[in-house]
């Protein structure tokens, strides 16, 4: 690569030339690109992500770098008048949570929703979304930190963090000391199926239940997988016996693509994000899904079908668990209110609303799946659909990738989507 050259001499002479001929647009774009690349530094590119930030893994936590020109707000400020712009995943935050925040703090909340984190990322980086606080996937964190898109948090506003949040998350692996984030919600990824349509299948009968998509006959056209690169390829790796779902080993990725190719040939698998609806309608019989999907599906299932037929499986050990975080925009107009919002989400009231609204677990004491079911907040039959404590503690997580790794993953996913 000739990146080094581009950054220095060529860049300078080009800029001089462009300014010389008064090509304003080009010059501005160039200065923009200069500022975009300045976060880069020499280092081991395989273990480092954007901006030279080490790649966090559950076993090896990472402190996200703090910058002098990007400081947290001062303590003891009064909340702004709002409205607070909340940018979150569509269908996750219950309406009750918005209204209770408005009542409590007198700050109007204006939510905007994204359909998937992949869709939100470029819009945020391009600056085309105005938000105060954002529901952020943890693999995106280093990108936002390195590009100084988000600001550190001031824990003096986050009183519920220390008192309510699980001990294991007081200093999370993806953001040691929680300098930029507060935890969002937890869910598990596995296999959802309709027991009435596939009466003979039982995951307990298989050594590797992930193999079901390749083993079961008569499911062609009735299969769906997530149209998300990390979920899709990650579970494919699990099926292939690769326990590190953040592997950037080309052989692992190639094997995952091969497995997908076989699956496409065998079942013409559909890629989508509406697993709960297609399962409820019976257009699909078996799918890669999130546990919460079978809870969602209950709202869409025809009256004559018993919701009990919606089944979900994920392994107790080494399940794919996903969680997200909340972060504050560096350009937030309401940073204090944003802190209060994050604090609000770590209170029991929201956690109860959340699990009942979207089937997601908020990581605060007393809201573990076991308790939620024991207290009757959720039906017993959703036991497998909510991430258990064991799954959360011993699960595998999507984590940030290096630039080369990210490119390899994107290429692999492109190959899947192109059926190559």
């Amino acid at each position, binding site marked *: 690569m000739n990146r080094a050259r581009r950054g220095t001499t060529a860049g300078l002479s080009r800029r001089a030339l462009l300014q010389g001929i008064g090509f*304003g*647009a080009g010059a*501005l*774009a160039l200065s*923009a690109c200069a500022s975009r690349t300045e976060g880069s530094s020499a280092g081991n590119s395989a273990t480092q992500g954007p901006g030279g930030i080490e790649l966090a893994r559950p076993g090896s936590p990472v402190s996200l770098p703090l910058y002098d020109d990007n400081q947290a707000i001062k303590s003891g400020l009064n909340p702004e008048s709002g409205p607070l712009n909340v*940018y979150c995943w*569509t269908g996750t935050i219950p309406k009750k949570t918005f209204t209770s925040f408005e009542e409590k703090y007198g700050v109007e909340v204006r939510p*905007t*929703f*994204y*359909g998937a984190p992949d869709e939100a990322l*470029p*819009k945020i980086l*391009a600056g*085309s*979304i105005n938000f105060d606080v954002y529901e952020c996937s943890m693999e995106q964190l280093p990108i936002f930190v390195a590009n100084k898109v988000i600001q550190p948090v001031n824990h003096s506003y986050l009183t519920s963090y220390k008192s309510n949040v699980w001990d294991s998350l007081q200093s999370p692996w993806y953001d040691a000391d929680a300098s930029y984030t507060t935890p969002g919600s937890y869910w598990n990824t596995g296999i959802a199926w309709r027991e009435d349509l596939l009466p003979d299948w039982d995951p307990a009968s298989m050594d590797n239940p992930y193999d079901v998509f390749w083993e079961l006959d008569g499911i062609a056209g009735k299969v769906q997988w997530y149209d998300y690169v990390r979920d899709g390829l990650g579970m494919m790796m699990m099926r292939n016996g690769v326990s590190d779902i953040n592997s950037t080993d080309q052989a692992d990725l190639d094997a995952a693509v091969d497995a997908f190719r076989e699956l496409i040939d065998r079942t013409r698998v559909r890629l*989508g994000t*509406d697993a*709960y*609806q*297609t399962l409820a*309608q019976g*257009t699909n019989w078996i799918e890669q899904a999130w546990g919460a999907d079978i809870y969602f599906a209950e709202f*869409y299932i*025809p009256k004559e079908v018993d919701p009990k037929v919606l089944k979900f499986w994920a392994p107790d050990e080494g399940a794919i668990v996903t969680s997200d975080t909340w972060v504050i925009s560096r350009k937030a107009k309401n940073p204090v209110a944003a802190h209060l919002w994050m604090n609000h989400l770590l209170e029991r009231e929201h956690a109860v609303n959340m699990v009942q609204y979207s089937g997601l677990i908020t990581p605060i004491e007393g809201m573990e799946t076991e308790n939620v079911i024991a207290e009757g907040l959720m039906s017993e039959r959703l036991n497998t659909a909510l991430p258990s404590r064991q799954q959360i503690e011993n699960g595998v997580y999507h984590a940030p990738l290096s630039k080369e790794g990210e490119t390899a993953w994107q290429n692999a996913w492109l190959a899947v989507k192109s059926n190559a």
Partner: protein
Amino acid sequence: MTTDSKRKGIRLPRPLAIFVWAYMVWNLLPVVAAMAFSFNATRSRSQWQGFSTQWWSGTPLSLFDNEEYTAALKHSLELAAMTTVISTVLGTLLALVVTRIRGVAKRPVNFILMIPIVTPELILAVGLYLSLTFITVWPFSVVELGTPAQVVGQVTYTVGFVVVIIRGRIAVLGDGLEAAARDLGAGPIAALVLVLFRLLMPAVLVGAMISFAFSIDNFVITQYLSSDSSTVSIPMYLYTNARGGNTTPALNALATVLVVTTLLAVALASLLYRWATRRESVASDVTGTVALSA
């Protein structure tokens, strides 16, 4: 005349007529059926189970009572209103100017005006999206993704068609009337306003209606330049929910509104055109329709 007076050309066997009518049925029946399903008594969009208006209004999930639908309806109408005004004004001015351009500029100008018409919408959308996200100077910096970008995209897509329609009208009129008005003592600009704009009015109205219809129906550009769920238009909503999604017959009701609005706009356009040009005999039905379509 040796041929049958009613049928021109070569008589092909009867099956052709059957084929044509079969095509019409194939073409139209599904749409009619989909509209009918908006009146279904149950949640199903594929099995008819009795008549009801519950998906239109009166229940929380119905078209006029559910915020998701009303927001999409409102957003689509907003976009269409802005697009119609801007592209009609720009299109009219451009059409007037383009017919006057002589010399070297003529070919490149005509070429540029044709670009949006002969480019797949997806590529127009990608180009606009990339320039809005990568360029940080005016005017790109002030047009945010969402409503402003969607209007810019829709106008860019429609204005070429408006120019084509109005140019066609100018070509029919020629510049004689304007000159005649000047000869009678009107100043050049007064002549332009008095004569040309009055005579161009029918075409301008048609252009406006066509922009409206294009905007309401537009999917690719509108989707690509949207920012979040507050800038979802009706076609975008249909696309996201057609296969899984919010699959009640209210979706069919939403689609029905879309279809009826567009058809009304186009019908109005063609009626207005006929009324305004009633003293001239213009081209036949076919060319008229195609002028609308081209």
